[in-house]
């Protein structure tokens, strides 16, 4: 187990360097000069542009810029934006917001998704199963902005149950609406996955054994069936956490959430290389760690799996 984790952690190093280098290169081959663009339609004077280019190291070769960036990064310095703010400061504003939103969304999709899936799976072929199927189909086929505006119209404008926009991301009530919209798509997948594995595992040998042993139904479904059916769902949720932490540009935009998606979107518009690479670096780390965590969870869920 320990050796397995160590090996996985070591494998992360080349993946990490490779992805950051790729992003770095991609951001820097975009055409145009972001420094010049700061003046908008106004003329920029060349002396100042030169001074700023020098300050941000843009006058060096691309490879040197990358090496400098990585050197700073290993000392915990994410660099500065063209506007003169610390990237680490920008990220420390955006990440907690997105994390809170992701937590809300994940909770909703776990509870409702697994619940619906289990229900449909246990009643496979019945009306409930068809109902869940139709619901998930509708949700999957609906674009997120349609869902966003529709949800706001119904729950905020018409019914008045929830606030329409997020002003304060620490207020759970305000995060419910965007969290719900964000959860919807994944919720449908979770429900479908759970339903399928539930329906399959119902026919498994260990289920028959459990029934034959005379175990109460609650224990059969709640422990034996649920635990064994969760493996594909956990895999899906694991990758989904990565997506959620990466921020959701559309949802964040609709509900005024000042999160990572919004930060990335703005940074891309301004070709703010340091911010983009900084955010992506964090995201790469998060996704690598979550993948590892998910792989380790398999062993917990299924004792037959052992890591060497």
């Amino acid at each position: 187990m320990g050796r397995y984790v160590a090996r996985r952690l070591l494998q992360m190093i080349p993946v990490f360097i490779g992805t950051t280098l790729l992003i770095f290169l991609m951001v820097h081959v975009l055409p145009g000069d972001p420094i010049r663009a700061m003046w908008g339609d106004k003329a920029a004077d060349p002396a100042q542009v030169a001074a700023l280019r020098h300050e941000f190291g843009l006058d060096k070769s691309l490879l040197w810029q990358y090496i400098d960036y990585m050197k700073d990064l290993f000392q915990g310095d994410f660099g500065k934006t063209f506007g003169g703010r610390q990237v680490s400061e920008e990220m420390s504003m955006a990440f907690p917001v997105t994390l809170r939103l992701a937590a809300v969304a994940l909770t909703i999709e776990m509870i409702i998704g697994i619940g619906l899936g289990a229900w449909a799976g246990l009643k496979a072929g019945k009306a409930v199963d068809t109902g869940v199927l139709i619901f998930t189909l509708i949700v999957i086929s609906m674009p997120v902005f349609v869902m966003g505006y529709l949800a706001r119209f119904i729950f905020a404008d018409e019914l008045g149950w929830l606030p329409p926009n997020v002003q304060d991301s620490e207020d759970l009530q305000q995060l419910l609406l965007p969290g719900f919209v964000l959860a919807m798509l994944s919720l449908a997948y979770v429900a479908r996955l759970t339903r399928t594995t539930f329906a399959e595992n119902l026919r498994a040998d260990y289920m028959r054994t459990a029934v034959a042993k005379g175990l109460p139904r609650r224990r059969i479904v709640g422990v034996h069936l649920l635990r064994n059916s969760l493996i594909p769902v956990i895999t899906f949720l694991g990758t989904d956490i990565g997506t959620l932490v990466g921020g959701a540009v559309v949802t964040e935009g609709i509900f005024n959430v000042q999160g990572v998606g919004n930060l990335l979107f703005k940074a891309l518009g301004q070709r703010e290389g340091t911010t983009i690479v900084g955010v992506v670096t964090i995201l790469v780390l998060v996704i690598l760690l979550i993948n590892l965590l998910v792989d380790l969870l398999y062993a917990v869920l299924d004792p037959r799996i052992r890591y060497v």
Partner: protein
Amino acid sequence: MRTASHRSPIRRTLSTGCAGALVGVVALSATACGGGDSGGSGSGIIRSSWGDPPNPLEPANTNEVQGGKVLDMIFRGLKTYDPETGEAKDALADRITTSDQRNYTVTIKRGHRFANGEKVTARSFVDAWNYGALLDNKQRNAYFFEYIEGYDKVHPLSGSPTAKTLSGLRVKDDRTFTVRLTQKFSTWPKTLGYNAYVPLPRAFFTHHAAWLKRPVGNGPYEVASYSKGAVMKLRTRDDYKGPDKPRNKGVDLRVYTDSNTAYTDLQAGNLDLVDDVPAQQLKFVRADLGNRYINQPAGIIQTLTFPMYDSAWRGPAKAKLRRGISMAINRKQITERIFRNTRTPASDWTSPVLRREGGYRPGLCGNACAYDPARARKLIEAAGGLPGGRMTITYNADTGSHKDWVDAVCNSVNATLHSDRACVGKPVGTFADYRNKMAGKQMTGPFRAGWQMDYPLIQNFLQPLYYTGASSNDGHWSDPAFDKLVNQANAASATGAAVTSFQDAEKILAEQMPAIPLWYQNGSAGYSERLSDVVLNQFSVPVYHQIEVG
């Protein structure tokens, strides 16, 4: 979908002494104080939409409107522009005198203080201007000081500065300083209403980082708290001595990612003021807000500029071609259908905000800016037709949804020339790349150019754009007669004479048409029933201190 007028059920109690308790509190914790959510309980606070400025709020480094909004509230300069007339009125300036239009003596009023108690003196101005001009400080508005003598030493075109301060600035005593310009510039005092010219307290230089966290100015408001990405709370200063004391208790600038979201919050009663009504809502805004919708001229003009470095477009011989294209554009129809009257067809190269006294003269362009397809076709044919039978209009595709109107302009040209393929839009992916192509003289046909004035003067609409080698002369047009008239105007001692000379220069633009004036842009705003006396100034920024709440 457009009946959203229900109150949000979220109610929070209004804690008293909110602003005071919040001073210095940063980041996320500040939001615990829900004073702004009280919606009509007579708190006297305006809740206004905002976007986080991308850079720290140094006055000489802020060139976008969101940061400018804050500076407008927390600073006062020598002059201020009357939101009604655009006239530059004395604010901190007691008097500004000159005998030769080049050497100026500035005397400031007594009794003004910064929010931290420090007196505003001549030195506060001179230090601030020297800071703004010095290349080492990399201030984006440094060019505002380019007319002051010694600018080339502190801000050379290449290499390091050879002086730290502008030789043209001298402090004479506590209330007086002198300015020597590099050339005659009769209307120079009227430029001093811009934010780049505000005074700065000593703390700006001695405790720079702390100042940036919480800027201290000499204006009617002070920053009570700022949580980035959420809200900046500004409160009125009790000790403010100026004549423009606010008629409200303060302003909460709330950050919105999107103007649509802000607009829905205005409708839901969660916000009092949006100063950008999104294009999608323009159709309904009258029905939604009635007369609480403002749509008035801003100091912005949009043009199509010709690449005068390209032989296909250059020279007086092609003037007919350029004029012909101008006459082929149905400005009225485009401003009505695409912009829903948030822009007005242009018939000179300035802006209505200048008013006639300031040099705005509709119709100065004459026939050349009037839609007349038959004559347009004749003119273009007489000039040998479009170069190669085709033309493109280049624009940047990432911001400002330019595609719609560029396509409409092309349709208008195509209809005039009875050809489907004569004119097509040519998008460039990003604004940064667009600027690069412009600077690299790579434009092969007319291209979009927008100009937002720095100060409401006719000089600012002409000299930076069309003077030979001027900083924003992106079409690289040059005409000795035009330059001569501009010089003459700058040397004139009376404002009226200066304006006449500038207008004479403008007539040369009408003949040569190096840039086609398209339309004047408006500023728009919408506000809630809680507010009254809402007006926008010439820069489309709400005049916050005049707004009454409740």
